[in-house]
């Protein structure tokens, strides 16, 4: 039983860490959106340059990666919850 309890505690701790990662990713996504707005404003106000275009392209890619990560982490946590349910069932 102590093995199950330890396993459950470890799994719960992993789930909590996953939630912490999810929150960090959500905040990062909000910051990226703000950075995108700033760079787009600069792109519209100043003359276009290769560095500025690359910058906005990389920010867009980062935003896409953040979205994927934000959607993937809850799915992983769902597996963890399912594991816990199966552990006590």
């Amino acid at each position: 039983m102590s093995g199950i309890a330890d396993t459950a505690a470890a799994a719960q701790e992993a789930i909590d860490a996953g939630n912490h990662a999810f929150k960090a990713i959500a905040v990062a996504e909000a910051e990226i959106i703000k950075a995108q707005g700033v760079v787009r404003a600069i792109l519209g106000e100043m003359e276009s340059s290769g560095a500025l275009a690359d910058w906005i392209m990389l920010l867009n890619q980062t935003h896409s990666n953040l979205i994927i990560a934000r959607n993937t982490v809850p799915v992983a946590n769902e597996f963890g919850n399912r594991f816990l349910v199966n552990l006590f069932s």
Partner: protein
Amino acid sequence: MRVHVFVASRNPAWLGKCAFQYSDTGSYCRLPEFHRMHDLSDLPHNHVVTCPFKPHGSPVEVRPLEPGRPAADRGIIEYHKLGFDILRDQENLACPASLMHWPLSNGARATLAQQAKDLTQQFNRDTEAEADEGDWEFAGEPDNPQSQPIKHKGRMGREPEPTSADWALNGREDEDIIPEDQVVTGVVPDHVQGQSVGRSGMLGHNVAIVQGALARTDQVISLANEAAMALDGVVHTVVEIKGDGHSETLIGWLTNLESARLELDKIRRHLSQANERGQSFINIITS
């Protein structure tokens, strides 16, 4: 030299009126007054008058006016230009209109100039006196003696009493001084023939904006690192729990965690490249 043409005709439209005052000096002629004093209606039609300033006294034919045509090309009188030397030999020569003796002597010229000067000064004095009377119907309220005139060229009006010294611009808003955060566009185009003019009025402001965006991306990198560390711990724990087992739930959990971990690696890589681009952009605009 003045040439006066008297029109004599029974046409009631211009009977008794002068055709025109022809003068190469452009001076004011009192000929209409002369005509008002002298009735020319008794003269027969197309009476030929003699120009008093023609040296040989040849007659000048006077024809009626043609409306709409300028006098110069009407051919009414023969154009002749007389010099003062011609009249100098003649004695008792007086203009019948201005009643002045021609040619003018130096004394006469000086007298005329002095009379013009006196008349002008008197007119100015009368105008100022009339203005100082204050009896204007639409004079309006007097200006605030503490106010100052507007220093902008071409503007009329007064500014209110200054609250501080004039040399301190905070007390007086000068329209010509453009604040630093105000961008004036439209005066100078941004691009001329496809090349940038390179206005740097907002350079400091734009650099600050770009650095702020770089700071945000740095923050995102630290958040991604934090998330990656958390997921590393989760993966380590799940691997320990799984051990050598083949639990589909744990395998699914691990698969998704690794996918998220890969995305976070991509995020950190892209953001570091983005920061490099942003920094190079700052170097471009500040160079």
